[in-house]
C-alpha cells in the first residue's frame, strides 16, 4: 500500500513540476533563469516528465485491485521496499522556492555580490566582425563593449550615435554626473550571469534612482577606466522605460 501511495505522490509531483515549467515557459519568464537557446531542452524535459507521470498513473490504474489481494502474502517483501519518502521532499524544494520567493531577474541589487565589468566577455572572432556591420543605434551594451574590447583603432566608432537600454547603477569610481548603464549577460543559466556596463555622462544623473531601466541616447565617447578604454555615452536624452521582457543579453 505504501508503495502505491509513494508512486502516486511521485507521479503527482512530476506533473506539478511539469506544470511549473510550462507556466515559466508560457509566461516568458523562463528567460529569467536560462538562456533561451536551451528552452528546447526544457521543452524536452517537460515532455519526459509528462510521459513518466502518465506511465506511473496508468500502471497504478492497471494494477489496482490486483495488489490489494497480494498485499497479505507479501509482507516481508513489502517491508523491504519501504519507499524513500525523503526523495519526494527534496524535489518539492524547487517548487517551494519558486512559489515563496518572489521571482525577479538579476538586477542592480545583485551587482553588489556578483560584481560588474566594463570589459566584455570575449566572443569567437567571426561574431565580433559581424558587429561592425550593425547600425550603431541598434547595438546593445554588450555590442559596444565588444567593439571597444576587440579594436585597437576606435576612431571610427567615436561620435557614433548610440541608443540603448539598461539599468541604472551607481559607483564611487564615477563622477556625480555619471552612472553605469548595466545589463546582465547570461550564457547558460542565471548562475553564470555577469553584469556588464558602459558609463553614461548625464548632467541630471542625480535625479535617477538605482535599478531604474532607462533608454539612453547620445554620441559615444572614449574614456579610460581602470586603465582600459571603455565606451561612454554623452547622453543627450535619458528616458525611463519598462524593464524588457528578456532582461538579459545572451552572447
Amino acid at each position, binding site marked *: 500500500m505504501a508503495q502505491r501511495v509513494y508512486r502516486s505522490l511521485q507521479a503527482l509531483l512530476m506533473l506539478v513540476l511539469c506544470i511549473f515549467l510550462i507556466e515559466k515557459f508560457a509566461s516568458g519568464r523562463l528567460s529569467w533563469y536560462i538562456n533561451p537557446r536551451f528552452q528546447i531542452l526544457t521543452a524536452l524535459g517537460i515532455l519526459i516528465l509528462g510521459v513518466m507521470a502518465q506511465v506511473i498513473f496508468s500502471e497504478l490504474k492497471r494494477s489496482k485491485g490486483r495488489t490489494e489481494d497480494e498485499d497479505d502474502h507479501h509482507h516481508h517483501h513489502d517491508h523491504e521496499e519501504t519507499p524513500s519518502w525523503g526523495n519526494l521532499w527534496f524535489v518539492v524544494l524547487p517548487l517551494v522556492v519558486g512559489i515563496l520567493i518572489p521571482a*525577479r531577474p538579476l538586477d542592480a541589487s545583485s551587482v553588489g555580490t556578483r560584481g560588474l565589468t566594463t570589459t566584455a566577455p570575449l566572443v569567437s572572432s567571426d561574431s565580433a566582425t559581424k558587429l561592425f556591420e550593425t547600425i550603431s543605434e541598434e547595438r546593445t551594451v554588450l555590442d559596444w563593449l565588444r567593439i571597444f574590447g576587440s579594436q585597437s583603432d576606435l576612431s571610427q566608432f567615436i561620435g557614433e550615435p548610440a541608443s540603448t537600454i539598461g539599468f541604472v547603477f551607481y559607483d564611487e569610481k564615477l563622477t556625480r554626473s555619471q552612472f553605469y548603464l548595466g545589463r546582465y549577460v547570461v550564457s547558460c543559466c542565471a548562475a553564470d550571469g555577469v553584469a556588464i556596463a558602459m558609463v553614461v555622462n548625464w548632467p541630471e544623473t542625480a535625479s535617477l534612482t538605482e535599478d531604474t531601466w532607462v533608454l539612453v541616447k547620445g554620441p559615444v565617447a572614449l574614456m579610460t577606466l581602470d586603465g582600459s578604454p571603455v565606451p561612454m555615452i554623452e547622453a543627450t536624452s535619458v528616458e525611463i522605460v519598462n524593464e524588457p521582457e528578456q532582461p538579459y543579453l545572451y552572447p
Partner: protein
Amino acid sequence: MQQNVARGATPRFVVWLILLSVLAVVFFSVTPLAILDWLGKTLPVFGTVFLGIFIEATPFLLLGTLTSGLVEVYLDKNKIGSLLGRSSVSAAVMGAFLGLIFPVCECGVVPLTRRLFQKGMPLSAGVAFLLAAPVINPIVIISTVAAFGWGRMVLLRLALSLVIAITVGMVFSTEKDASNVLRPMLLAHEHKHDDDLMPKSKLRRALLISADEFFEMGRYLVVGALLAAALQAFIPQSALLAVGNGPALSVIVMLALAILLSICSTVDAFVALGFANSFSFGSVLSFLVFGPMVDIKSVLMYLQVFKRRPVAYLVLLPFLFSLFFGVVINYWYP
C-alpha cells in the same frame, strides 16, 4: 533501505552548512532591520540562481536517468565486462571514450555510471567513464568548438580530460575488492524493481525505473544547486576574482570557481569564454577540465555511488592534476 543510507552521511553535512550560513547571516547584519533589508535584496537573487541551475540541469538529468533506465532493461548483465576487455588499462581507456556513445553531462553521467556498475562494469572503466564522459562526448565537443574555435583550447581540453580520467581509473583499478569502493546497495543482487507495479513492457519498465532514479538523484541536484546559489548570493564573486591573476593563483581561483558555479559541462565553454580575456590560458583550461569532473552537485551525487573515501579521491586527484597542468601550461606555454 535507502532511507537509512541517505540519513547517514550527507544530511549531517548539509545541516552544518545551513548552520554556518545562518551564522554568517547573523554575523553580517547587526540589527534585525538590516537582516530584513539584506534578505529582501539577496533572497530573490538566491531564488533566481537556484532555479536557474535547477531548470537548466533537470532536462539533462532526465536524459541521463532515461538512458540509465534503458540500459537496465535492454542491456544484458556481464556483457559490459566482456566488451571492455580484461586488462584494467584497456578497460579504463574504453571507459573514457564511452561518452561518445552515451552523450551525457555531469548530471546524467552519475546515474548511468551507477547502473553500469550494477551491470558489472569494472571499477577502472566506470571511474574513467564518470570523469571523462562529461567532456568526451559529441555535444560538449561541439559547444567547446563553437566557443573557442578549433585549436589549442579544444584539443588540450579533450587530451587532459582523457589523461586524468584514465589515470584516476587506473588508480581505482588497484583496488581489487569493489565493495571497498562502491556503496553496498550497488553490489547487492537486486530485486529492487520487482514490486507489483512494475509493468511487463520493457519500455514502460525503463520509464518507471528512470522516474525512480530521477527522484533519487534529483535530491542531490537540488541540494547542490541550493548550496551553489547560496554561495553565489551571499559571497561576493569579486572577492574571489580579485584574489589573483598570477600564473598559479589564477588556476586556483578558476578551479574554485568551477566548483562554485556548478555549471553543466555542455555549456561551460561559453561561460569560460567570459573569463578568457581576464584570466590566463592555463586557468581557463583547467576550469574546463576540472569543472565537468567535480562540482558541488556532482560530488553530492557521487556519494550515492561511492563510499566517502573514494569520493575524496575522485575530488582530490582531478583537482591536483588540473592544478598541475594549468600551472605548467601557464609557466611554459602561456
